[in-house]
């Protein structure tokens, strides 16, 4: 026969088990909702079922002479030397943001050629190239 003590213990274990399942499924569900995919301009052009309006990251090189600035925002073109995409952004840029340097922008696609960024990421080290961009460039520039 099960004593009261053992019964309590079994209930306690079941309770913990259920709580952990709820907690873990909660974590996984929110994780799937909130991941940001990284894409290059070429990948955006080639993907058929791309989601407009969903947060993502785009990276590449800032094209030479492509930066224009007006009262509201900054616009520039990011290239992976095969395809290009226009990005618009408002706010201060990181100090390493410059033409012909690597950049990662976080924001949303409005169509396949135009991206609105909420955030521009650039690294502290001037020699540093984000690995994603390095890969793209090595693939396209031979």
């Amino acid at each position, binding site marked *: 026969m099960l004593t009261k003590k053992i019964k309590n213990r079994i209930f*306690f274990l079941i309770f913990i088990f259920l*709580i952990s399942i709820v*907690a*873990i499924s*909660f*974590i*996984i569900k*929110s*994780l799937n*909702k*909130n*991941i*940001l*995919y*990284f894409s290059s301009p070429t990948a955006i052009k080639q993907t058929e079922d791309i989601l407009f309006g969903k*947060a993502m*990251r785009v990276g590449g090189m800032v094209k030479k002479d492509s*930066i224009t*600035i*007006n*009262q*509201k*925002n*900054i616009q520039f073109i990011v290239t992976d030397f095969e395809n290009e995409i226009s990005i618009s952004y*408002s*706010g*201060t*840029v*990181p*100090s*390493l*943001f*410059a*033409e012909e340097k690597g950049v990662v922008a*976080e924001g949303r696609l409005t169509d396949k050629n135009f991206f609105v960024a909420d955030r521009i*990421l650039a*690294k*502290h*080290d*001037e020699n540093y190239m*984000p*690995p*994603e961009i390095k890969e793209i460039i090595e693939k396209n520039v031979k």
Partner: protein
Amino acid sequence: MLSNIGIGLIASTLILSFLIIYIAILNLKISRQVIEKNIYKLSLFQTTFTVLSFFVLIIGFISSDFSLINVYENSHTTKPLFYKIAGTWGNHEGSLLLWVNILVIFSYLFLVFSHAHDKKFRLYTLIFQNILILGFLFFLLLNSNPFNSIYPIPLEGLGLNPILQDPALAVHPPLLYVGFVGCSIYFSAAMASLLSDYGGKLFAQSIKNWVKISWCFQTLGIIVGSIWAYYELGWGGFWFWDPVENASLLPWFAITALMHSLIVLEKRDTLYAWVIILCLSTFILSVTGTFLVRSGILNSVHTFASDPSRGLYILFFLSLMIFSALTIFFLKYKKKSYNLNLKSKETFILANNWFMAFFLITVLTGMLYPIFLDVLTNVKISVGPPFFNIVIIPLVVPFMFLMGIGPKFGWIKSKNKILNKFFFVILGAIAINLFIFYFFGKYSLLSNLIFIAAIFLILHSLLDIKKFINNKNKNELPRIISHLGFGLLVFFIGINHQFSFEEDFNLKVGEIKKTNKYQINFKNIEIKDTKNYKAVIGVFKLENLKNNLVQYLNPEIRIYSNPETLTYEAAIKTKITSDLYLTMSNVSRSEYYNIKFQDKPFMIWIWISSIMIAFGGFTRLTFKKNED
């Protein structure tokens, strides 16, 4: 010259480590209950040598001895003296030497201050600590030697990254390192406790002060890093959920859980296994964090020194640590019966531990998932702040309620009477929340709950302070300060988040921008020339349209020459009720300057309340001493 002295000192430390382990093992076999004098002496020598080696490196930096590669790569003759010294630990090799220093110093201090405890336990702790020291010393010598020399000797150094030339970042690494590496001593003690069968209350007493010390320093280190990010990175936030920040949070969750469950072990002699697991995982998580950051696996906005070859060694050492920890745990751990009383303090401390474990798992998942996905499928993703906010913030609500209620319960069983008081405090919290809601602005249901929970915790802590003044709960002051600090922190973060105002725009010199509360006039730019950098300084006149108060803000664009780098310095006007924050940048010498303007209420209070949390820990350290 310095290179040889440095390497000599490191080598002697290494030899001493071997000697200490050898003599300690011999000493274990002798049945006398005293540790041999030689071990104390050797340990003292070891400490002296490592500390000296660190001073040798500092001298190298002060005298700009570019025959050391490390000095050449990270220093420059024109750099201010303060940053020359801070540069010692601002780079990978130097910070690793600091790491080893703390390992050795803690090892010696533990040996000296643990004399009340079992000899076998102390000796095992010393042996494990020295194995850790050896592991990191070999890493230092083989892979990241700060004393490597260079020939021919360069005339000038490359300079320190300007973004690191900052007072907050000069103290940030030492604080964090004392916090992280300080965990090593109870990692070793936990292993020793399993091997020497020295558990329970006595074990808890032997490590509790070390846990408190490392907790205080970790907390303070994280806060200083956050303050630095706020004024230096120029986007106006203080927590980014950046991989590097997350890496520092992981051991903090584990150590906070440990600090609480250790009280249970000391008072009630239960939870021994759980405490051991937390001791082991705190240090393992510290090393994991360092491994992920230093190896460059984590792609972060502030990784300064990274190199993949370093990762391999740390990964190897880390696996060895985890493997041996698990082996010893499963071989030696003896099961004890365990009774839990639902209405006791233990339940609440356990609840604290569950929450901590949940936060830890969340942050760990968010951090590691992108790495796994990249390795397995080559799909590149990142996990942004929304994930952490959605998962963690709602749980802070019940967490804070329990934080307020828990300490009120007695150890074994409590009466139902205290529940009445909670009811009134909740009513008070709801009333205050409604007041803020109606008079200052509306916000979501979740925010309402967060405010109520935070105010609940604050009110409870204030009631406790009243009790303390009436001399009723003498030993509880540290807990009250830390819990009150946490309540205030969440409250002010909530207010700050809810009522912050932000606007981005571009302006030419002479132009005016009107927002609904401020008129911003970009009057002029000035050029300043200093020894270390040139600066373009913007002169902004800010007029508050509501009370016509005029203020001037001066953000800077700095051009450092060694190494050639551009940094943007935010202009921050701090007041008791709010911070005005303005940064400007300029792209391709365009006429337009990009401006980010923010009005952030109660910013300073976020720092004050978070420092209160750490301060509570420090008072606990002095408190217990008085008691002894």
